[in-house]
């Protein structure tokens, strides 16, 4: 039988549609692979084996009865644990929500169920999506499938590792400052942060409401587009949801596969995201990719975004400020754990404080305290108010850049995957890691990361970030699919086919070497 786990979602959809395979077969193959490799990778916090097989059997029965199903019907998917699921625990990576089963589904979860995708389980993440490595998960870190001693990125390291380790062809992520794109970069997978408001946030446990955006995590650009088409579009349950009529992202991706798709496309290289602090192999692969783009007919030029220098600072004021108010809902009354203080009277206030001390990890406490500080009377104007002004300046930088070019590019992350523990004792070093991805969230524009090779010095994946103007998500998919095709033609294979074999798996090439 065809190897089912290393197929793209688009290929699986084709095999399911023409009856070559059943959804039960496809789902079981992925569940078996999860059993084999997840003890090492730890991408999943919860695996819903029985429910997944039952759902797959129902989809197969409906297909057999001649029912017309959606394009991804029967294809398995992993769900980041930040998204509410009525039939699976939802913890957001935090002890404070251990075992919580929400009474409702997030809108994106409802939509993937309505489109007959098969939920496999919930993926690991930094607690409340605060982090760039999954080391801040209360349930232990996820390991990078390329090197189990290294981080898979964060906060959505579980979703990225799940697709990179072939445990799922598709996953859902959320991106507040890079939590979809940076894990994609360091695991050799694809991730998209849609335009703010393009995908519903209803049922996504809020980190920073003006920055959070749900999006696809996949192995190919076309798969991301297919998933985007399922989850995107207006949702009346999210007051920040855009009412736009969106074009088909899958059609946009397919347009990128046609000859000449890169001819005359104006690409801007952001000067401020291409300098000091970037690993040599990251810069090298980026320069090589730009050369390939030029050779394919794209017009590459340099653009300046002078205020990006202030983006990390603005972000680490706005995010903690919003997070400190969002996380006030964890009050030991309506959901989650309740912990009584060791001594003294049992008042609601003291029980709440004891619960939050026991239930929140160090990074969450750090950001809540920082946010409380930034919003305090006397500091508000200097910190939070100034950060909001920087946000305006960054939007203006993007507007000026997009007057000159169609798309902006940079490396997705300054380095390849770092080792566990390397940045845990230095919060600012961890925060600075997000310098490339944060500007898109501050401005609300869409961004994508796709693989652009392996760094020669460590053999680890490097990601290309592409950004488009707000609402121009389709442009991202057209360009992304074209670049992916160009790079894979240049290499002669996909990047992930060069990932080392994991325990009990022998179907992947282990030779390889630098791409």
């Amino acid at each position, binding site marked *: 039988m065809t190897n089912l786990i290393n197929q793209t979602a688009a290929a699986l959809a084709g095999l399911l549609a023409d009856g070559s395979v059943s959804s039960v077969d496809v789902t079981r193959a992925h569940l078996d692979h999860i059993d084999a490799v997840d003890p090492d990778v730890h991408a999943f916090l919860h695996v819903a084996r029985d429910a997944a097989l039952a759902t797959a059997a129902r989809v197969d029965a409906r297909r057999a009865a001649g029912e017309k199903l959606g394009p991804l019907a029967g294809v398995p998917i992993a769900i980041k644990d930040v998204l509410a699921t009525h039939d699976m625990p939802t913890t957001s990576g935090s002890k404070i929500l251990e075992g919580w089963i929400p009474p409702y589904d997030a809108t994106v979860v409802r939509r993937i169920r309505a489109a007959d995708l098969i939920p496999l389980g919930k993926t690991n993440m930094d607690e409340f999506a605060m982090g760039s490595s999954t080391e801040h998960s209360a349930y232990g870190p996820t390991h990078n499938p390329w090197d189990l001693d290294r981080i898979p990125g964060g906060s959505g390291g579980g979703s990225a590792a799940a697709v990179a380790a072939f445990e799922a062809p598709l996953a859902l992520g959320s991106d507040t400052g890079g939590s979809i794109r940076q894990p994609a970069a360091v695991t050799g997978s694809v991730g998209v942060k849609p335009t703010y408001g393009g995908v519903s946030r209803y049922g996504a446990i809020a980190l920073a409401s003006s920055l959070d955006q749900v999006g696809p995590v996949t192995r190919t650009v076309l798969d991301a587009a297919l998933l985007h088409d399922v989850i995107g579009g207006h949702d009346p349950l999210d007051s920040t949801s855009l009412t736009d009529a969106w074009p088909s992202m899958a059609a946009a991706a397919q347009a990128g596969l046609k000859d000449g798709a890169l001819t005359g496309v104006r690409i801007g290289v952001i000067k401020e995201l291409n300098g000091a602090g970037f690993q040599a192999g990251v810069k090298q692969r980026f320069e090589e990719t730009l050369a390939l783009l030029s050779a394919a007919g794209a017009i590459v030029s340099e653009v300046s975004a002078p205020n990006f220098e202030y983006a990390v600072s603005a972000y680490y004021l706005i995010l903690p400020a919003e997070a400190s108010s969002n996380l006030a809902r964890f009050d030991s009354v309506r959901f989650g754990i309740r912990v009584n203080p060791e001594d003294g*009277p049992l008042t609601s*206030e003291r029980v709440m404080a004891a619960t939050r001390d026991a239930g929140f990890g160090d990074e969450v406490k750090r950001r809540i305290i*920082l946010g409380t500080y930034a919003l305090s009377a006397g500091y508000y104007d200097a910190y939070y108010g100034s950060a909001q002004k920087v946000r305006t300046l960054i939007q203006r930088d993007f507007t000026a850049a997009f007057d000159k070019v169609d798309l902006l590019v940079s490396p997705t992350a300054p380095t390849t995957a770092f080792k566990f523990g390397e940045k845990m004792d230095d919060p600012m070093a961890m925060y600075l890691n997000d310098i490339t991805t944060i500007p898109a969230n501050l401005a609300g524009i869409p961004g994508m990361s796709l693989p652009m090779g392996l760094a020669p010095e460590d053999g680890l994946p490097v990601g290309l970030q592409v950004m488009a103007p707000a609402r121009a998500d389709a442009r991202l998919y057209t360009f992304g699919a074209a670049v992916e095709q160009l790079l894979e033609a240049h290499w002669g294979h996909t990047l992930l086919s060069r990932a080392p074999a994991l325990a009990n798996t022998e179907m992947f090439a282990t030779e390889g070497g630098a791409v």
Partner: protein
Amino acid sequence: MSEITAEQVAHLANLARIDLSSAEIDRLTVELGQIVDSVAKVAEVATPDVPATSHPMPLTNVFRDDVVVPSLTVDQALSGAPDRAGDKFRVPAILDEE
């Protein structure tokens, strides 16, 4: 250098309702000082002529029709509560004895 003190962190922790240990307060005082020193650079370019942006894609007056729609049942709403009494959340005393 920022002027953040341990007393200030203890006050913030109280406002944020997190019962931090004194060791946590000491560590956070140092870390917070470093972070605040670093992020304070936003003030360099945040001049009075620049308007603030609170939201990346501004929308106004997002309303729905004023009609009853299905909502959570009482049991669903209480399903995640650590404690309940009948149809209500049960909580510890709101007022202390002082």
